[in-house]
């Protein structure tokens, strides 16, 4: 339907980020929800999980992503940004897509083995996708800020994706 096509179009836009205000105009939060759930599902079953069913860790990933996105949005609005609350949430959520792809690749690599080679491969993939995510979201979000505040807005976004990348990189299956 119409909504599904809009979600698909936004996914494509994230992978090839060019500044288009048309993307920002119709925001929706379906994509971020799907990405958040799939990322949280893939981060299950790590060695940090103790005896139980990985419940708290699943909710943790959720809370980190959504709460982090809300805090970044509030930060950019307090700095005088012109973007609306839900637009910013939409962009930040959709730009988690490269990191979800990185998580998928990491899990596949870990199936092959968990030695030094696999660590190096995972490191390279995660760094590349982290850079892609940060660049994609900055391309959309930094324009709505006055020019001397751009670094203040980019830094929390950098931190947000860094935390997610750290969770992905330090994931070791049980």
């Amino acid at each position: 339907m119409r909504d599904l096509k809009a979600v698909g179009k936004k996914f494509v836009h994230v992978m090839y980020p060019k500044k288009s205000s048309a993307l920002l105009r119709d925001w929706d939060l379906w994509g971020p929800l799907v990405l958040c759930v799939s990322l949280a599902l893939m981060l299950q079953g790590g060695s940090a999980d103790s005896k139980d069913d990985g419940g708290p860790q699943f909710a943790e990933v959720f809370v980190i992503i959504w709460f982090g996105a809300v805090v970044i949005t509030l930060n950019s609005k307090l700095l005088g940004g012109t973007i609306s609350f839900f637009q910013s949430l939409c962009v930040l959520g959709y730009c988690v897509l490269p990191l979800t792809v990185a998580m998928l690749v990491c899990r596949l690599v870990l199936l092959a083995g968990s030695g030094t080679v696999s660590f190096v491969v995972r490191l390279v993939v995660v760094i590349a996708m982290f850079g892609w995510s940060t660049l994609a979201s900055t391309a959309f979000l930094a324009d709505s800020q006055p020019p001397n505040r751009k670094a203040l807005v980019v830094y929390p976004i950098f931190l947000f994706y860094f935390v997610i990348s750290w969770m992905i990189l330090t994931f070791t299956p049980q």
Partner: protein
Amino acid sequence: LRPSRPGGGAAGPAAADPLCLGCSALFSRHPLATFFHLFFRVSAIVTYLFCDWFSNSFVACFVTILLLLSFDFWSVKNVTGRLLVGLRWWNQIDEDGKSHWIFEAKRVSTIAASTEVEARIFWLGLIICPVIWTMFFFSTLFSLKLKWLALVIAGISLQTANLYGYIHCKLGGQKSISRITSSFFVTADVSKRQTRRISENCIEEHGNTASR
């Protein structure tokens, strides 16, 4: 010569026949929308209450309830509100990036009995479920089962968003919500005030006549 009314034969007997009116009151005009309006909300609540029976896995329950809540939000916002009560609301961002929230209500000339039944079901479902999720919030908080807290907060925000949006639609364009609530409290004790005023007038008159 009387001009013949097109379809007059169909409209006349239906309006006059009380049996047909009763039938239309029982069967709503949008049975599917009514069903789905309640289905997703109630199944989310039921799954939350009985998740231990369905599955041992916290993750499966969490994802199921979250998906049910999201489908419920989408269907109530986009489909059932429009079909059952003729209200809709959305967000629009114009050329210079400013966001506007738009609330619309459809003008209805006649209110059929079936529409009233549907509207009652709509508003009951819309109001009762956020209240239930708020109770869940307090019960998780006090029983310290904090891993469910994220889910309950998500449920409360999604359902309250729809509730707020539709209330705004219903009242918007006429008065603002704060004025409506204040006028509600005013009309509640207007009878007391009227009697007080009448008695004050009487006392004034008596006082005046007494002093004279």
